[in-house]
């Protein structure tokens, strides 16, 4: 159906999409995880209430989340160029992807940690556990199933963003869909990219659900 050239382009596009998605998710977690933990700790009924810090993070997270990804992508081009030397291509796309996803991940982490039973936290406090001990041994350990499920949601969302970046030469499957499907009316190539994107989401979801089930000891 497709020439070898097209097939190898689709395969490469899939790898590039995976590279952008996984790398951005990794960096977004490096930023988003501590932000999410800080949101939980500093909230009014948190372990270390601090309205000032909470409000600042809360507002910044809301602002970044309010900017549509495509606009953010264009808005921060000077920053992206300063950081990686160019504003297009897969590696450059990781910068806006990370910045767009980090606040989203902070919110996901926050909601996962807030699910942890207050009684369990109280028990850890009553043992004299330090805040760090409670975060590490109780909050993150207890919320790990929810964190993994939410990480799967984050991956699928970032995959969607990465495809969007194709409109401005971001690379990957989105880029192929735009160039061939939109500009050249080669609908079959566009369908192929869509199927590949669907497959990627399915695989991520499958792995995420499996891992979450495996580490969930509560219902064994």
């Amino acid at each position: 159906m497709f020439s070898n050239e097209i097939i190898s382009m689709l395969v490469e596009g899939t790898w590039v999409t995976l590279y952008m998605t996984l790398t951005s998710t990794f960096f977004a977690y490096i930023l988003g995880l501590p932000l999410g933990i800080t949101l939980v700790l500093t909230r009014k009924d948190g372990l270390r209430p601090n309205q000032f810090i909470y409000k600042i993070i809360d507002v910044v997270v809301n602002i970044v989340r309010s900017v549509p990804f495509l606009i953010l992508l264009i808005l921060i081009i000077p920053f992206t160029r300063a950081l990686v030397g160019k504003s297009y291509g897969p590696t450059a796309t990781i910068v806006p992807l990370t910045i767009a996803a980090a606040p989203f991940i902070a919110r996901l982490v926050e909601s996962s940690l807030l699910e942890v039973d207050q009684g369990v936290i109280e028990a850890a406090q009553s043992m004299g556990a330090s805040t760090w001990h409670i975060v590490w041994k109780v909050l993150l350990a207890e919320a790990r199933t929810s964190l993994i499920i939410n990480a799967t949601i984050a991956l699928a969302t970032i995959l969607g963003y990465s495809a969007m970046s194709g409109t401005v030469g971001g690379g990957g499957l989105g880029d192929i869909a735009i160039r061939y499907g939109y500009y050249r009316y080669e609908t079959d190539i566009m369908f192929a990219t869509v199927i590949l994107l669907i497959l990627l989401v399915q695989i991520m979801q499958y792995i995420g659900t499996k891992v979450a089930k495996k580490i969930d000891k509560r219902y064994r």
Partner: protein
Amino acid sequence: MEEYVLKGEGLRKVYYGEGVSVEALKDASFTIYPGEFVVVLGPSGSGKSTLLNMLGGMDQPSDGKLFYVRQTKNGPEEIELTSLNADKISDYRREAVGFVFQFFNLIPSLSALENVELSASMSENPRDCREMMRLVNLEGREKHFPSQLSGGEQQRVSIARAIVKRPKLLLCDEPTGALDSRNSVEVVKLLVKVKEEMGCPIIAITHNAAMAQVADRVFYMKDGMLEKIVTNEHPIPVEEMVW
């Protein structure tokens, strides 16, 4: 120095809500002595939990003073808990207090033994975790998760978790509140056994008067007041307790 473990002087707690304030504890004064079993009895809302949380360093009084006598190499040292900062209070909880909760509050993703080990990991001189499991009659259930244990078994794990760190006092918040009568009796038996074996005072709050039969002293509370303290001249053996 008078030999005691805890001493409260005029303890008072006021909670402030939106436009309203509630005085949950009014001018409570008392002393807790080594090795005694104190039952705090009162209906819901009488201030029992507020008092217990204060004794355990989980809450600070609005007024009044709370003293704790720490045994050191150089003899007893009196510490005013109400003057300590949050970190020092956390140290007090780690060193001195064992807590048992009504709904057990075990960590669901850790096995029974791991729950005990987590508590032991915070202590400088913990007891053997497996030995604690034997003490609470749960030998062989070490690898079970809380969801695989009955309410009574979970409460026994939570007692093991509380005593593994050699607490200087054991605080129990309605320890039988979520249990049927058979398991309740088992838990009270276990508390008495712990008191005899470890010699640390046990303070248990309850609204079930049956537990008072085995106590050395009973604190009666009503509407935030510590109404009276009654010494039980002849506490009955736990085997004869009628639930």
